[in-house]
C-alpha cells in the first residue's frame, strides 16, 4: 500500500446562495494519476481552487493535509511553495515572451534581481528535454502550437519542483496525437514519483492512464474507483446519476434534396497570402441531413467553414456557394446570415458570445430585425423570444437576465445555438459544438441537432471526436491539410477508416482502391 500524500477532508465551500462543494473528500497517493471527473458545474474546478489556495484558508470548511502536515494556504504562492502546481485550462503564458522567459516567469533565475540568462537558458533546455519538447528556449510562445504550449506549462511546473501536478482539462484543445504525448508524459512522471490530478471530460483517456478515479456530482463526492473497477459505463452512471443507455439520441433521417453546396472552394492564408490554405473543396448537404467533417486540429476545417461564412477567414477566396442549386452571395457575414447560412463557432468565448451581457441580448444579437420594427427594438418581443429559446434548448440559468460569462460551458453553448436558431437559417454549420462540455449537456446538444434535422435544416458539423461524428452524422467528409480526402456514409464509417484516410491522404487511398480492385 503506497502512502497517501494528499488528503482533503470534508471540504465544504459556499458561495452566496449556492453550495458549490459539500463534504468532499479526496485522497491522492504518492506517484499516482488520480482523475477527477464530473459534469460541468459538479465542483471540480472549485475543489482545485480550494486545494491550490485560490480560495484561501478560512473561506471554506474542512481540512487539507499534504505530505503529513496540515495546510492553510492563503494564496497560490503558498501552495506552489509546497509543490502543488495547477495548470489551468486557459494557459497562463505570455505570448510575446520566449519559452525560457515563460518557464521562469515569477521564478526568475536571478541574483539580486539580475537575471542570469545563461543559467536560465540551460535550465530551460533541460526542462524541455524532460517534457520531450524539441524547441529552442528562445522561441516565442506565440510561434508554437497549443500542444507545445501545454508542454511549456508543464516544464514551468517542473521548474517549481512540483510534487503534485494538477491539470485542468489539459487535452481539451489538443489533437489526438498531442493528447497522447501529454498523457504519456504523465505516465513517465508517475515513475519519477510525481503525483498528478487530472481533470478531464474525455473518459477514454481517463480510462487509459488513471490509477484511480473520483467522481463528483452536484458538489459531492460520489465515489472513488480503483484501477480494476474502472469502466466507462460505471463512470458515466456515477456522473449523471442515472445509467445512460445511449450516448446519442436516436433519429429517423428524412433526407431530401441538396440544399447547400460548395464548389471548388479555394482560400489563401491571410498572413501568407501566397500560401493556399483550403484547396478545391467540394461538398454538399441535403435537407434534413447531418453531415460531419472529420479531421485533426489544423486540418483546415474551421478555416474552411469561416471562409464560407462571409469570408470571416482567409483571403483570395474563389469558388461557388449554392443554395437550392443557385449561386448565392455570401461574401459578408451579414449576407450569409440573410441568405440563411449560420456558423456557430468552436470558440464560444472569443467568437461566440458577448460575455459581459446577458442571455437575452446574446440570443437576439444575430437577428435584431426579428425583434424590432423600423430599427426600434420591441422589448417584450425580445423577452418572449429569449424565454422561448431558453426553454427549448434547456439553458440552466436563474433567468434570461443572467450574464453569459457566468454560465457553464454547456449552457454557453446552448446560448450560442439559440442565437443561431433564432436567426432561422437553412444551413447551420456547427464547429465543435460539444467541445469542453459534459456528457449530459452533450446529449442535449445532440437532441437539438436531431430536432433541427427533423425540421428540414441542413447541418454541417465539424468535430474532433470521432465517436460523436459516427453517432450523430448521416454522412462524413474527411479533411486533411485543407483538402477533402474522403467521403463516406456514416453507416460505412469507422474510426479506423477515418484515421487511415487522414494519415494517407486521398491519392494513396485511390491507389489502394485500384490495387484492391485489381486483385
Amino acid at each position, binding site marked *: 500500500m503506497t502512502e497517501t500524500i494528499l488528503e482533503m477532508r470534508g471540504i465544504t465551500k459556499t458561495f452566496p446562495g449556492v453550495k458549490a462543494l459539500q463534504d468532499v473528500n479526496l485522497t491522492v497517493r504518492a506517484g499516482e494519476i488520480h482523475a477527477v471527473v464530473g459534469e460541468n458545474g459538479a465542483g471540480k474546478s472549485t475543489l482545485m481552487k480550494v486545494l491550490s489556495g485560490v480560495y484561501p484558508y478560512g473561506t471554506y470548511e474542512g481540512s487539507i493535509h499534504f505530505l503529513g502536515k496540515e495546510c492553510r494556504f492563503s494564496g497560490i504562492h503558498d501552495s506552489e511553495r509546497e509543490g502543488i502546481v495547477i495548470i489551468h485550462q486557459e494557459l497562463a503564458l505570455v505570448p510575446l515572451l520566449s519559452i525560457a522567459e515563460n518557464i521562469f516567469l515569477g521564478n526568475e533565475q536571478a541574483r539580486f534581481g539580475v537575471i542570469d540568462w545563461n543559467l536560465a537558458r540551460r535550465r530551460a533546455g533541460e526542462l524541455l528535454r524532460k517534457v520531450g519538447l524539441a524547441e529552442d528556449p528562445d522561441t516565442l510562445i506565440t510561434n508554437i502550437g497549443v500542444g507545445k504550449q501545454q508542454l511549456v506549462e508543464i516544464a514551468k511546473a517542473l521548474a517549481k519542483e512540483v510534487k503534485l501536478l494538477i491539470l485542468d482539462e489539459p487535452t481539451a484543445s489538443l489533437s489526438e496525437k498531442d493528447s497522447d504525448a501529454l498523457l504519456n508524459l504523465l505516465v513517465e512522471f508517475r515513475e519519477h514519483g510525481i503525483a498528478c490530478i487530472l481533470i478531464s471530460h474525455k473518459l477514454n483517456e481517463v480510462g487509459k492512464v488513471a490509477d484511480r478515479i473520483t467522481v463528483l456530482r452536484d458538489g459531492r463526492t460520489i465515489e472513488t474507483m480503483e484501477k480494476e473497477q474502472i469502466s466507462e459505463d460505471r463512470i458515466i452512471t456515477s456522473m449523471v446519476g442515472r445509467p445512460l443507455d445511449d450516448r446519442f439520441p436516436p433519429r429517423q433521417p428524412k433526407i431530401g434534396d441538396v440544399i447547400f453546396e460548395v464548389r471548388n472552394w479555394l482560400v489563401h492564408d491571410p498572413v501568407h497570402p501566397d500560401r493556399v490554405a483550403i484547396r478545391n473543396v467540394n461538398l454538399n448537404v441535403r435537407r434534413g441531413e447531418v453531415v460531419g467533417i472529420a479531421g485533426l486540429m489544423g486540418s483546415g476545417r474551421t478555416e474552411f467553414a469561416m471562409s464560407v461564412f462571409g469570408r470571416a477567414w482567409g483571403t483570395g477566396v474563389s469558388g461557388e456557394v449554392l443554395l437550392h442549386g443557385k449561386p448565392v452571395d455570401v461574401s459578408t457575414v451579414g449576407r450569409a446570415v440573410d441568405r440563411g447560412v449560420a456558423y456557430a463557432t468552436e470558440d464560444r468565448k472569443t467568437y461566440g458570445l458577448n460575455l459581459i451581457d446577458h442571455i437575452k441580448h446574446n440570443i437576439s444579437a444575430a437577428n435584431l430585425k426579428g425583434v424590432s420594427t423600423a430599427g426600434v427594438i420591441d422589448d417584450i418581443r425580445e423577452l*418572449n423570444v429569449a424565454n422561448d429559446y431558453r426553454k427549448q434548448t434547456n439553458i440552466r440559468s436563474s433567468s434570461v437576465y443572467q450574464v453569459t460569462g457566468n454560465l457553464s460551458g454547456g449552457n454557453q453553448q446552448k446560448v450560442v445555438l439559440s442565437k443561431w436558431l433564432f436567426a432561422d437559417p437553412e444551413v447551420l454549420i456547427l464547429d465543435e459544438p460539444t467541445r469542453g462540455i459534459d456528457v449530459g449537456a452533450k446529449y442535449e446538444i445532440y437532441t437539438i441537432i436531431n430536432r433541427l434535422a427533423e425540421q428540414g435544416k441542413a447541418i454541417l458539423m465539424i468535430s474532433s471526436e470521432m465517436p460523436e461524428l459516427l453517432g450523430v452524422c448521416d454522412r462524413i467528409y474527411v479533411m486533411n491539410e485543407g483538402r477533402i480526402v474522403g467521403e463516406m456514409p456514416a453507416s460505412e464509417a469507422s474510426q479506423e477508416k477515418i484515421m487511415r484516410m487522414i494519415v494517407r491522404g486521398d491519392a494513396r487511398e485511390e491507389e489502394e482502391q485500384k490495387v484492391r480492385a485489381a486483385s
Partner: protein
Amino acid sequence: MSTETAVTAPTPARDSAQSAIKQNLREYGLVLALIAIMIFFQWQTGGVLFKPVNLTNLVLQNSYIIIMALGMLLVIVGGHIDLSVGSVSGFVGAVAAVLMVQYKFDPVLTTLICLVVGGLIGASQGYWIAYMKIPSFIVTLAGMLVFKGLALWLLGGMSVGPFPREFQLLSAGFIPDFFGPWTVFGTPLHATTLVIGLVIVAAMLWFALRSRRARESHGYSAEPFSLFVIKNAVISAMVLFLIYMMASYKGLPNVLIVMGVLIALFVFVTKRMTIGRRIYAMGGNVKAAALSGIKTERLTFFVFVNMGVLAALAGLIFAARLNTATPKAGLGFELDVIAAVFIGGASMAGGVGQVAGAVIGAFIMGVMNNGMSIMGVNIDWQQVIKGLVLLGAVVFDVYNKNKA
C-alpha cells in the same frame, strides 16, 4: 416537444425584478451621490448653489460637456476613446467665428456648415480607426494636436468676435414666455417653462406606466410597484424642482432645450434601437459581433462621425457663450467629458455604460466645479479633488463588480 425538455425554471417574473434592481443599482447610487453632493455644497455655500440664477448658470456652464459626453458614451461603449473632442470643438468655434465675423455669413447657415465640418472631422478620424484599424487613442491624439494647431492658424493667434446677436442666443437666450408670467405666492414665474415642465413629467410618467403595463400584460412583472413609485416620484420631483427654479428666474435656456432633446434621443437610441444595441454588442466582444453579422467597421465609423457632429455643436455653444472664439477654447474639455462618462459607470474595456450615467457624471463634475468656485477653493485643489472623485467612482465600480 419543448415542454418535455422544460425544467422547473424559477419564476422569471421575480428574477427579472431582482435583476432590474441589481442592474440599476449603480444608477440609483449615482443619483443619490449627485443629490448628496448638491446638498453638501448648498450647505457649504450658504444657500448660493440652489439660487435660481446659479442653477441656470450651472446648466449653461456644463451644457457643452454634457452634449459631448453623449457622443463620448457611444465611443467608449463601442470600445474606443476620443481625445480630440476638445480641440475639435475649439476648431469649429474658430471656423464659426471666421465665417460670421470675417465673411459675414448668416448664423443659421454658419451653424449648419459647422455641424457638417464636425461630421467630416469625425469621418476623417473614424476612417483610420474603423477601416485601417489604427488604435483610436493614437488617431485622436493626433487629431487633438492637428485641430488645436488648425484653430490657432485660423484665428491667427487672436480672439475673433463678437458674434451677431442671433448666434449669441444659442447660449445666452431663453425661450420666450407665450402665456405671460404667473405670480405664485408673490413670485412671478415663467409660465411657458412651467407648462413645458409639467408636460415633460406627465409624458415621462405616461411612458413609464405604459411600458410597465405592457410587461405585465405579457406575464412579466417589471419591478416591485413600490420601487417603481419611489423611482418615478424622485425623478419627477427633481425635474419639477429644476423647472420651478428656472421659471422663477428667466425661464428655460435655449441650450437646455437642445440638451434635453439630445439626451432623450440618445437614451432612446441606446436603450431601444438596434443600432444602439449593436454598439454595445461590438464593445462587449467585437469578434462575436462581427460573426453575428454586425457591420462593426461601419458602426465604428458612424460612432466617430456622431462624435464629431456633437463636438462641433459643443464648440458652437461654447463660442456663443463667450461671444468670441479664442485659440484656447476647448482646452482640456476632452478630459472633463471622458471623466464624466467614466464616473457615470462606463467601462474602459467597452460594452458597458448608460446615457443617464454619463449625464449625471457630467453634472457631478459640474456641481463640484461650481460649488468649489463659489466656496473659493483654489483651482489647484479643485483639480486634485476632481481627480480623486474620478478615481473613487471607478474604484467603487470595480469593487462592486468583484464582489458580485
